């Protein structure tokens, strides 16, 4: 007959294994209370670890997007400023442009204004933001514009003039040219030079504007390339004024040039404000995307905290319980060990 149903071995071992498992729990809880996360997320989450990893990757990706967005924002800001400047330059130039003036002083003033506009515009277009030439399109690694003086474009213009009239622009013989001849030259020889590849004689820019990925699946054009029609118009206006106001052209003929220059520059100024509007739209879009991304980051952080985070209050309460349990277990162990018939025999 069996009097009792517990063996001494089970009695002693039972306490031992309980205590050691409690100690394991203690270590785990300590870490969880300190870090506020599961001690071993993989163990706790299992298959949902993929979600956690995905969220963490998303977070890294979103962080990357915010970097991308702010860089794009800076580039666009630069573009916006430069375009603004360009517009002002154009307006200043237009203000100084008096068509059909015969006075040589006034001519020089106009020419100087054109030269000034040309130089300032090239300076603006060669603006560099974060190491990139913002008007270079995809050709970000070299200045968008050459200096006009001595450029291939200037050579082409001079060559075209020489070919048509048999003498150079600087030749006094230009005074013999009438309005019709100049008009013909401007529309049939001069203007096409800006459309063709010879525009490349002045511009190093790529036709393709730089694009940037600012969010998942969102690719935006960042900035304006110097090859934009507006920019070409601008240069057509200023270069025409620059070249012919320094020549010996007669009053009528110069009037044609002045009108041409005025018309082109005005178009350009219009175009520039349109471009600025477009850039502004992109900027606004980036701003919106950035807000969205930030919201997303918060959301993702929330999700991942929900996945891997622990309730610190709950855990510390649990920790206290475990400590109490271990203390109880210790005291029971010592009391059980006192509980032996040997003490009473």
């Amino acid at each position, binding site marked *: 007959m069996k009097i009792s149903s517990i063996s001494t071995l089970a009695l002693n071992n039972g306490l031992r294994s309980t205590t050691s498992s409690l100690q394991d729990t203690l270590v785990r809880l300590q870490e969880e209370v300190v870090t506020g996360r599961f001690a071993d997320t993989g163990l706790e989450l299992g298959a949902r670890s993929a979600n956690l990893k995905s969220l963490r990757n998303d977070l890294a990706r979103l962080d990357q997007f915010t970097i991308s967005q702010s*860089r794009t924002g800076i580039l666009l800001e630069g573009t916006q400023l430069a375009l603004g400047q360009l517009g002002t330059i154009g307006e200043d130039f237009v203000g100084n442009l008096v068509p059909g003036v015969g006075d040589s002083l006034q001519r020089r003033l106009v020419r100087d204004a054109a030269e000034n506009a040309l130089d300032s515009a090239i300076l603006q277009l060669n603006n560099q933001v974060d190491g990139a030439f913002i008007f270079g399109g995809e050709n970000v690694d070299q200045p968008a514009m050459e200096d006009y003086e001595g450029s291939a474009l200037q050579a082409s213009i001079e060559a075209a003039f020489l070919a048509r009239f048999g003498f150079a622009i600087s030749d006094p013989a230009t005074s013999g040219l009438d309005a019709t001849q100049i008009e013909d030259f401007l529309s049939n020889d001069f203007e096409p030079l800006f459309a063709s590849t010879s525009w490349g004689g002045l511009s190093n820019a790529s036709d393709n504007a730089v694009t940037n990925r600012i969010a998942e699946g969102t690719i935006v054009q960042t900035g304006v390339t110097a090859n934009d029609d507006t920019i070409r118009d601008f240069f057509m206006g200023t270069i025409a004024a620059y070249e012919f106001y320094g020549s010996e052209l007669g009053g009528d003929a110069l009037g044609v040039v002045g009108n041409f220059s005025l018309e082109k520059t005005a178009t350009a100024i219009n175009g520039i404000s349109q471009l600025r509007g477009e850039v502004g739209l992109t900027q606004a879009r980036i701003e919106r995307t950035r807000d969205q991304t930030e919201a997303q980051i918060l959301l993702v952080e929330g999700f991942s905290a929900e996945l891997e985070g622990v309730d610190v209050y709950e855990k510390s309460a649990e920790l206290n319980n475990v400590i109490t349990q271990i203390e109880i277990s210790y005291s029971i162990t010592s009391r059980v060990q006192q509980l032996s018939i040997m003490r009473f025999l």
Partner: protein
Amino acid sequence: MNLTLTNALRIAQTSLLNTGTRTSVLTDNINGANDPNFSRRDASIAYGPNGEQTISIRRSENAALLEQSLRASSAASAQETLSSSVTRLNRLINGVDGEASISTALTDLENNMQMFAGDPGNEMLAATAVDSAREVADRLATASGAVQLFRAEADREIEQSVADVNSLLEQFKQVNDKVVIETRTNGDPTPWLDQRDALLKEISEHISVNAVTRDSNDMVLYTYQGVTLFETNPRSVTFTPTPTYAPGKSGSSVRIDGVPLDAGAGASSSAAGNLAAWVQLRDDIAVDAQSQLDEIARGLVLAFAETDQSGGGGPQLTGLFDYGGGPGMPPAGAVYTGMAATLSINSAFDAGVGGDPMLLRDGGANGASYVENANGEAGFSARLLNLVENFGANYTTDASAGIAGSYSVSTYAEASLGWLEDIRSTAADSADRKSVLSERLTQELSNETGVNLDEEMSRLIELEQSYQASARIIAAVDELFNALLNSIR
């Protein structure tokens, strides 16, 4: 029976002898109080019609509980092995807390590509992107190598376990023979029974055991598969070790009595005994993990592939990532075994060996027809943006690698991590449950068959009293005889 003084004396004598035997049984019990394999013995006395008292020693047994306990310990041992090994495998592939995972490296690569795409003219960023791609390739190759090492390790564990089982079965034969002899000759088989139960417990840690007792306490052992493990003689458990593993190489199976051992299945494994768990780790889990690495590698090769731009209809060829079978593309939709191990950075991109990281932006690692940035523009970002988008583009993955569904290379890497963590978590949970059950049953068995010192001590007091009483009878009879003899003068 004659009721005489002489008989009284003899009975008292027998009683003294029995008390001696019972005391020695009790001493055995006290001795074995802390031996988990000791079963307490009971000395029971049968009284015959002629005053004979025969003592029979009964060992407390509970066959049903023992079998349950063996089953539980088999399962717990297998699960414990699975759980700790999967944790190890996870650490080998993903590092602690997934920090060294392929997925992390992939995200780094993606981010660096994104950064590069935002500033395509920046050579530094190109070099950084290629560097992080190298990191991805290295991690894949390292992880693949680690998986193979893990398999080799599992193989060695199997070899060790098989050797243990064989030697345990040899010992089992010796002890079983003793039990049978002692039982047949009405001897005392109890110490041998203890040993046999202990051996049974040890064997059950390695392999599932179904013990059937025949005549004369003879035991026959079967595995749960019904394969004979021991019947009169031990059956041989054979295994040919494979010292080195390469992807796709399969290890040899453990054969018990010529029948291959079934591997365990599932994260809460069906394996009983760590042999089946090791086989499962080696042939199932590690192989799946390897296939997933290969699938990630394939996804990368696909995502970075170059397409013929010349209109000449040339084939798609490997781009940034190259592999053993490059530059052609691996067959679609199927695991290309061993791909992760051979994954590397195409040397055309590697500035260290004269390559140009900028090919990442321009394309053309496979010749002029593959150049996308025809004008060589520094800000050309179309290809880079495509590549970045490709991280999220789904490709046809092979469900045989253990993950079914539609994935992009990033999500596949995440899913692969989740797959392993899932196994780990399920296995650990299950290991906890199974070992608690096993512990419970061991405790119950111990309560059922073990020794309680207090009880033994109180029995000892009983025996002391019984001894004293017998001695008193002898003294009394002696006095009676004295009285009788004194009357003869």
